[in-house]
């Protein structure tokens, strides 16, 4: 009973933070606080450019950054870059999480698989995905495959780890309930095991997105693909177009934030509300 009550109160907090009537004002207030440092930096920036403290190549005027952003948007290069990056991210996260969730669930459910895979997984986890770049470049050349392989690798590791621990944390009576109601073998796997571990899987999914995002931006700088946000940043540096460099950074932040807030976070809140548990909500 105690646990149930706690669940309800934490759930209310979740709702309070997302959909309480009258939360508009609160949101506006917190947004105002959050914008404070942004405004401060912009003012500082404007002053330094006006006083010409730094050469314009280091700090171009904000108006120049804004007009670069506008030009990139109108000419369509920005859309191509965002689309390219987003496509690589989606492909690798989808492929990687299918493999990762399957592997992690098998590890959590079958002791043998766990014994075989866990030590190798621990070892691989201590090698950052980016460390494999020279290798994949050698294998596949300076192309998209070299990037995707590394992203998939990182996503597999991340989702496998969270699914594995998610399956291990499942209350055994839930599995017993499933068995006693006729689920066994593969049907137990997809009707009980995976949905029961879903909150952990979603958390892993979110983490995988964040990691893949970071790696991808760097990877696009190393391999000249002709499009992509990382490619655009590096290209802007090589062309000494610092206003485009700043505009590109702004877009990287904006797209990353949008993926997180408009897609991943609602996905997590949805599962949290249904499962009635609060897990790693920041």
């Amino acid at each position, binding site marked *: 009973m105690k646990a149930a009550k706690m669940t309800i109160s934490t759930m209310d907090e979740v709702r309070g933070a997302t959909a309480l009537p009258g939360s508009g004002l609160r949101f506006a207030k917190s947004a105002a606080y959050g914008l404070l440092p942004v405004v401060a930096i912009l003012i500082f920036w404007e002053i330094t450019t006006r006083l010409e403290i730094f050469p314009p190549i280091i700090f171009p005027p904000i108006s120049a950054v804004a007009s670069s952003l506008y030009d990139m948007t109108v000419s369509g290069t920005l859309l191509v870059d965002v689309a390219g990056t987003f496509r690589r991210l989606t492909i690798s996260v989808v492929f990687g999480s299918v493999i990762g969730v399957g592997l992690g669930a098998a590890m959590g459910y079958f002791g043998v698989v766990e014994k075989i895979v866990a030590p190798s997984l621990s070892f691989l986890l201590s090698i950052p995905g980016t460390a494999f770049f020279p290798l994949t470049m050698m294998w596949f050349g300076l192309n998209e495959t070299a990037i995707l392989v590394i992203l998939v690798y990182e996503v597999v590791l991340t989702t496998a780890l969270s699914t594995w621990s998610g399956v291990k944390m499942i209350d055994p009576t839930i599995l017993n309930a499933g068995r006693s109601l*006729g689920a066994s073998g593969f049907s137990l796997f997809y009707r009980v095991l995976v949905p029961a571990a879903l909150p952990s899987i979603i958390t892993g999914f979110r983490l995988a997105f964040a990691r893949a995002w970071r790696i991808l931006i760097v990877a696009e700088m190393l391999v000249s693909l002709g499009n992509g946000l990382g490619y655009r940043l590096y290209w802007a540096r090589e062309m000494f177009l610092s206003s485009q460099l700043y505009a590109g950074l702004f877009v990287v932040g904006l797209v990353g934030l949008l993926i997180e807030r408009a897609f991943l976070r609602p996905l997590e809140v949805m599962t949290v509300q*249904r499962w009635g548990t609060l897990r790693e909500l920041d």
Partner: protein
Amino acid sequence: MAELHVQNVSKAYRSRRMFGSNSTVIFDDLNVTLKDASFVSVIGPSGCGKSTLLNMAAGLEPITGGDILVGESRVRGPGLDRGIVFQQYALFPWLNVIDNVAFGLKSLGKSKEERYGIARRYLRMTGLAEHETYFPAHLSGGMRQRVGICRALAIDPEVLLLDEPFGALDAFTRETMQNALEEICAKARKTVMFITHDIREAVFLSDRVIVLGRAPGGVVMDLPIDLDRPRNRHDREFAEYEAILEKEIRNQMPL
């Protein structure tokens, strides 16, 4: 409907130690028979193995020796001929009320219309008809356990196994649930094994109460309750049954 036979069952837990192994005997030649459509409570001090007995009958716990039979067929694992109600409800949090109840019917290969039709019938019977789209996290303890009972009954099992189903509920809800369960059982006419540590609950619901002794004690008392239904918890005779059982259980308690 069918009888449930527990024949010469023994059960020992083996725990590996650093040097050699240790085994704890829970049952040694246990024999219990539940007659067709009878309601039998199993009661005893904690550690007497009453939940182990239920899990063995459910096929969730292997037996060391002997046989458990549902009708003619031997229990080899979990099966749809036995419906189980768990103490902690064990509802599937990702499914709403009606899908929880219909879960086992899907295993039976019934169509969606059939599944929902049957599930709705049980939900109406337990007063949950208006809550079919709720998720377990949004239900009270009593409502959750009613869903648990509906889920076990929906597959139309031969035997219903309940493992301290009302143990986590408050006293008022518990009495309401006991009344509801008696009504349901009168309608459904199932063979029921009911594990409890509540003497009153056992006397109120059961045709027979079995007392298990401290492991490996087995059955130390098998008491038929000859009271008309529905029973009055404040009857003199009701109190006498309670007194008999309480005395026997006290005898089994460690000092």
